[in-house]
């Protein structure tokens, strides 16, 4: 199991455990994390799974692929260098303990 910590916009922290191989978006949806919608089910077509990597973690996570880069423009909240579509990040043992911050809104 891989642990992820979600930090909501108001600072509330929720920690969940997910099977390696699931996406961060799927882990969030399965655990009822409100700040992630994931409406397109992980197809990189809705940008309602936008998160910010914690700066301390950014180097551990593989870079954005082109389709993710392109779709991030459709995120509702501000896009920064730490912005990711969480459906495009697969949880691997190397990402254990990852901290992701949630935007105020996904719409």
């Amino acid at each position, binding site marked *: 199991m891989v642990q992820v910590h979600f930090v909501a916009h108001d600072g509330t922290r929720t920690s969940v455990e997910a099977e390696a191989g699931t996406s961060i978006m799927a882990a969030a949806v399965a655990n009822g994390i409100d700040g992630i919608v994931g*409406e397109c089910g992980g197809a990189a077509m809705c940008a309602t799974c936008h998160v910010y990597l914690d700066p301390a973690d950014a180097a551990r996570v593989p870079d954005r692929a082109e389709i993710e880069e392109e779709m991030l423009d459709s995120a509702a909240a501000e896009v920064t260098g730490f912005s990711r579509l969480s459906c495009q990040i697969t949880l691997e043992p190397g990402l254990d303990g990852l901290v992701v911050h949630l935007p105020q809104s996904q719409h």
Partner: protein
Amino acid sequence: MPLAPSNAEVSFDQLTLDPYPVYRRMRAETPVVRVESVKRTFLTKAAHTRLVKDNPELFSSNDPNTPMQPAFRAHTLMRKDGAAHRRERMAMQPSFTPKVIKSNWAEKYEAIAKDYIARLPQDGGVDLYRDLCGPVAARILAVILGIEDATDEQMMRWSQNLIDGAGNFAWRPGPFEVTDRANDEMNALFDRIAQRHLADPGPSAFSVMLNAKDPIPREQIYANLKIAIGGGINEPRDALATIVYGLLRDPGQFEEVRRQEAWDAAFEEGVRWVAPIQASSRLVLEDCQIGGWDIPKGDTVMTIQASSNRDEDVYENGEDFIVFRPSNPHQAFGSGPHHCAGANIARRTVGQIMLPLLFDAFPRMSLPDAEAVQWRGFGFRGPINLPVRLN
């Protein structure tokens, strides 16, 4: 494993008039079922419809041999998979992002909404469906697409023609003659205004597609505009009419929505309750199983999102319009690669602009006779009239 059970009783008319009792029974007794009158395998549970839409490798949209091809005179993005689909879809995406909607469209849309609301006769009864929901949806779409030159009547007629043509599974010549004329008119308009967009680039979908660094072919630009016309008027129109109906029919709930300004939640509940696009089809590429039933390669499955949105496994009292739900993970905008490209626009224009402005203008609006409202549709569904008193 056996093939899914077959249902030879349910008629197409029944599904068009009121499919919900049929779906409720199917969810309980035959959640995966071959419906003879429609010649499709219906999937009525939320988990199954999502599974199919999220797996394009197994359940393809790529089916050039549907009536959509002659109706649109193109193999459109809705019927493509993979990279070809993504490229055409992303070509217009820049026009539909939340940020562009906020910075470019929101103000224009408020002005349009106010203008169309102001035109309603101030006293007595009106048919809100005919007098407001349709025309305002047509105008909003014309603006975002960059084809303001088209009248509301043209937009609504083309949209309906394309829908009728794409649904002409009986392959009768009549509907294709109608879409041929509509295609000629649309192409003539697009040809006429393309130069203007090339000379003066803007954020509209037409302009963004024409002026892209690496543009998609002109025929596909036109096909994309037609998909947006066919898929961008009826749904917001029907969503608005459905939500207004749901609210007016339950004054207590309406009062609470107004007090909390819960328009976003009212929007989500309206599209959940009566999904404007009720069903979609996918072609099965390999023998597989759904819900324990064999689904053979070559079959066409229909995801009935209308039914998923009322699935007892997901919702309590799913048959009722209840704005304040603990969560609302509906599939009204679909899922997977074909997830609605206009979801942001619909949420903003209907939920955040039309609903508050309309009830602000007519705080005492009422529905004198809820029974007079008629509902229609199997593929697309909504009220076909909405007689209200404004004051």
